[in-house]
């Protein structure tokens, strides 16, 4: 940790002050003094290898490298003496004599540091070397879809190698050979995709020259001509800040990311960096479609909207407003979600509005609201880096939330955090763990109860915290008192010793942070699981403090926002209950409409209501239940049977195929608005390019429809909508476009001067006292039996996102993740005569799909695992639609299955 003492020194005759441990370069940059540097990146440990940053320090015999030399009191530094300038020029000329390239034909032109300094120092033209030939030389990127390495333009600064090792911690790259032969390569010059590389592209991001470049961006414009728009990545809940680089043809050519900006500091994952092809895909919807005689026909906006308004109007008149439902979208902006739920609640007059958060974190919202009073990540991403202990349970962090994975790795490797992982599979992050507990899926409550048993019997609980800040402790204690680790071992198969060890590590660390995700929530006991984690945190006083907390990682880019903005059947924006009379009145007044005070239906309940004939009309914004919902056969039947279905989306998705009317909308790169990331940070989304054809903003479509339904809605822009949100939802009270222009704000942010909230429940829980809940272990609904002897779990993988609608348009991603698969343990596979890559069929009581076998020891015996992204082997044909009784989330993580070779 840096010691924040002030150090006074002089740079170029000017008095400046810096902090202990700071380098001359960092301090100079802080004060706007430019020192040229090539091998330096603030994300990396300085290597001092290029020597371009040389400066003079009084008392030093020779010039020193500013990027490695630390400041000291009274130091006198000169950054631009004649000798220094001459020395730098010589260094640059040497580099140019080895760098064989021509800027005129180089993609990097305009963004290249070597070029920049070459110009600034007016390098002698005779120093330039020319390439021997233009033919690509074979190397580790040959044939790779993601990137191209050109050793001619490589200045051997080592930044790519170091970032792969120090930040991504994949160590895929190395220098090979010596002297003039040195170049970047992989182990044994293997093709990049055969190494530990995860295609994050961090190496490209740090390369100061055109030596490393995105393959798909080559020849599509030079960096100097791109228009760059800062926005928020549209994939996962981390909310990385990205710059979309757009060429003169309105195409996104490359994605870059600014170093030093929250929350990702210039780092991205494969989806954010290489997954943007979908935006310019020729499969995008460009005009409204109306289904006539079973076939889609292009229509005008007026025709399409009139049709929807007429149909919904008729259904409402005959069957009442509750016969209509709306599914909002965790992909859309806050403003769109707000407008959507407002339209459903006012123009239709029902609370039947929900979205896919139901399928991932409904149990989080329910559980944490009960225990703490607020259903969101308690602490911020950055705090993870300084936690003493990190307990990851049911989250494949490095694959589903890769950039948060970086924070976890940083904590362990650089700051000495102890990592405990509880996951049935040997996921990637396990290689950084002190302890891995491979519990049987669906037995989390037993595991956590036993950990609490240990903490209580060994007197490791924070009794003061419990007394002062919590309630109902005794009820919880009564349940775990007799539940020993040995009893838990029977249920979970994790050894009692490991459970004891985990409990001790978690309870005794300076600060402990729990990270969880769908492995916890997607169970019929999802809410119980979340309550257990809340118990564990309160028991040890690990909540309401820096680097602690219970931290659900949200899946979709804006699932937090969609929940915040009331795309839920029980609450208005800002988690204000529809059943609370005062709140109900407040919204009736603000919106000028009669509202229903009856709780609405959830996603899966809506599908079931169709079967019962109670739901006649459905309006979908950017959702794909025909691939994402459990028990697909049943879901698809509902979509087919429903009287009227309207869908607005960017593609003709599996779901849109069932629609009567389809409306083309814009994707995140084409519109303005905000997303709220998993750490409750509201961040800007900015329009970088024009949408295709006649596509329109989701909120404008919704407003037009509401108006046609007899409830006029009109806004001039998204900023106005956010202002309306702020006026009605106290947690967003102080948030506006203006305030989040540079850096996002984390809610609660009640007023214009509030700085936002880094971590929740500081001196008091949102609900007053934190509430312990006695939770007893209940097994999953389905058990393995004779016919279905395996248990099947579903989940995500690094390269794909959700139903693959976006990611599967990327050649980079398709190269490494072309199709679905099912994981099976070596021994099970051998017994059944299944070999790696073989075609197999997987069956459950609900359906059967064919896919490929991936034989591995990363999964337990008796278990199968399938990613759910692939429409050609849809895992959700198999999953069970049994629901958590409180949160109504389906049990995606466990069902009985069988597998056989084909």
């Amino acid at each position, binding site marked *: 940790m840096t010691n924040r003492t002030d150090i006074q020194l002089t740079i170029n005759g000017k008095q400046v002050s810096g902090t202990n441990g700071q380098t001359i370069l960092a301090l100079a940059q802080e004060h706007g003094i430019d020192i040229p540097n090539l091998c330096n990146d603030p994300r990396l440990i300085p290597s001092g290898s290029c020597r371009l940053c040389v400066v003079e320090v009084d008392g030093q015999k020779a010039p020193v490298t500013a990027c490695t030399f630390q400041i000291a009191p009274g130091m006198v530094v000169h950054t631009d003496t004649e000798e220094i300038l001459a020395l730098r020029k010589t260094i640059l000329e040497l580099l140019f004599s080895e760098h064989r390239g021509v800027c005129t034909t180089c993609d990097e032109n305009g963004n290249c540091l070597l070029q920049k300094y070459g110009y600034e120092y007016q390098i002698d033209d005779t120093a330039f070397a020319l390439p021997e030939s233009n033919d690509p030389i074979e190397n580790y990127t040959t044939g790779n879809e993601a990137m191209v390495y050109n050793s001619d333009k490589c200045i051997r600064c080592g930044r790519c190698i170091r970032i792969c090792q120090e930040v991504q911690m994949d*160590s895929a790259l*190395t220098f*090979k*050979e010596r002297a003039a032969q040195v170049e970047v*390569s*992989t*182990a044994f010059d293997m093709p990049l995709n055969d*190494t*530990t590389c995860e295609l994050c592209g961090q190496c490209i991001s740090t390369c100061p020259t055109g030596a490393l470049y995105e393959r798909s961006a080559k020849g599509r414009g030079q960096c100097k001509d791109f228009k760059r728009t800062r926005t928020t990545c549209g994939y996962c809940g981390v909310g990385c800040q990205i710059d979309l680089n757009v060429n003169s043809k309105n195409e996104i050519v490359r994605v870059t990311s600014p170093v030093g900006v929250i929350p990702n500091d210039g780092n991205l994952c494969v989806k954010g960096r290489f997954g943007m092809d979908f935006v310019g895909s020729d499969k995008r919807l460009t005009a409204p479609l109306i289904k006539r005689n079973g076939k889609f026909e292009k229509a005008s906006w007026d025709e399409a909207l009139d049709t929807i308004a007429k149909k919904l109007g008729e259904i409402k008149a005959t069957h009442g407003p509750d016969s209509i439902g709306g599914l909002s979208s965790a992909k859309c902006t806050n403003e769109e979600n707000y407008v959507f739920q407002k339209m459903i609640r006012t123009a239709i007059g029902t609370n039947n509005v929900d979205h896919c958060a139901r399928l991932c974190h409904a149990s989080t919202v329910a559980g944490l609201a009960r225990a703490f009073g607020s259903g969101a990540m308690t602490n911020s991403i950055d705090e993870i880096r300084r936690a003493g202990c990190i307990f990851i349970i049911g989250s494949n962090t490095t694959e589903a939330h890769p950039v948060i994975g970086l924070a976890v790795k940083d904590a362990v490797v650089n700051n000495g955090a102890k990592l405990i992982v509880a996951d049935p599979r040997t996921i990637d992050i396990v290689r950084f763990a002190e302890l891995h507990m491979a519990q049987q899926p669906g037995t989390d409550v037993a595991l956590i109860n036993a950990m609490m048993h240990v903490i209580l019997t060994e007197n490791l609980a924070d009794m003061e915290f419990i007394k002062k800040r919590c309630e109902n402790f005794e009820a919880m204690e009564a349940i775990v008192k007799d539940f020993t680790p040995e009893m838990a071992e029977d249920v979970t198969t994790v050894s009692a010793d490991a459970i004891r060890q985990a409990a001790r590590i978690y309870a005794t660390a300076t600060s402990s942070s729990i990270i969880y995700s769908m492995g916890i929530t997607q169970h019929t006991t999802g809410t119980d699981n979340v309550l257990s984690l809340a118990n564990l945190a309160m028991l040890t006083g690990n909540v309401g403090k820096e680097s602690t907390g219970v931290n659900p990682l949200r899946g979709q880019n804006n699932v937090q926002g969609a929940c915040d903005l009331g795309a839920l059947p029980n609450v208005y924006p800002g988690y204000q209950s529809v059943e609370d009379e005062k709140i109900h009145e407040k919204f009736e007044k603000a919106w000028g409409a009669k509202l229903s005070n009856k709780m609405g239906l959830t996603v899966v309940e809506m599908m079931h209501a169709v079967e019962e004939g109670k739901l006649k009309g459905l309006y979908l914004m950017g959702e794909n239940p025909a691939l994402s919902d459990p028990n697909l056969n049943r879901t698809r039947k509902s979509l087919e049977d429903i009287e009227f279905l309207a869908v607005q989306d960017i593609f003709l998705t599996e779901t849109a195929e069932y629609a009567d009317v389809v409306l083309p909308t814009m994707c995140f790169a084409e519109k303005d608005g905000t997303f709220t990331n998993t750490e409750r940070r509201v961040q800007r989304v900015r329009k970088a390019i024009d949408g295709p054809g006649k596509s329109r903003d989701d909120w404008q479509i919704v407003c037009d429809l509401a108006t046609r339904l007899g409830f006029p809605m009109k806004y001039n822009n998204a900023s106005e909508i956010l202002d309306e949100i702020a006026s009605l939802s106290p947690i967003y009270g102080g948030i506006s476009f203006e305030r989040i222009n540079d850096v996002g704000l984390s809610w609660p942010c009640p007023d214009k001067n509030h700085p936002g909230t880094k971590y929740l429940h500081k001196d008091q829980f949102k609900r007053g006292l934190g509430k312990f809940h006695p939770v007893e272990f209940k097994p999953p609904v389905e058990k393995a039996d004779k016919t279905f002897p395996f248990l099947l779990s579903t989940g995500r993988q690094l390269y794909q996102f959700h139903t693959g609608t976006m990611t599967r348009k990327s050649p980079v991603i398709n190269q490494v993740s072309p199709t679905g698969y099912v994981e099976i343990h070596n021994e099970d596979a051998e017994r059944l005569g299944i070999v790696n890559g073989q075609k197999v069929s997987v069956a459950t009581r609900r359906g059967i799909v064919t896919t490929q076998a991936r034989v591995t020891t990363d999964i337990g015996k008796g278990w199968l695992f399938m990613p759910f992204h692939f429409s050609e082997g849809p895992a959700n044909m198999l999953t069970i639609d049994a629901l958590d009784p409180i949160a109504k989330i389906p049990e995606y993580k466990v069902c009985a299955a069988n597998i056989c070779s084909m």
Partner: protein
Amino acid sequence: MNKQTEDCLDLESLGKILASRENIESADLSPILQEIQLSYGYLPKEILLELNRRTGIPSSQIYGVATFYEQFHLEPHGKHTVRCCRGTACHVKGGRGIIQAVQRVLGIDEGETTDDMQFTFETVACLGTCFLAPVIMIDNDYYGNMTSGKVKGLLERYK
């Protein structure tokens, strides 16, 4: 010896090399690679990949060190290295004849290793001892003023 047992034997030597050390880190790589080369004759890819699995040192780093030092060989390599000079000085004084003589005596081309794994033959742009031209180098010893006639006898001494 069938392939299976050969593989087992292979790993055994690696096991012995690693057994004498604790907490192996990247910094220990060069001495370990030296020992591996001593016991296997070169640095077999499979052994280096196994080294990565057993120590956790990234294989990229292992490869970096293995290619950095001239003494390491990633291909099977003879016990002795014979280097002939292709430089101008040597060429003028009949270096070509020396190269041909070595090829004849050992029965291999440049870059190859004899079947009995005794000799690997390489040519070099200049051995830096032009005053001795034509020059041949065996392991770390230089032999100047060579003639094709002396080649056979010289190589015999290393058998």
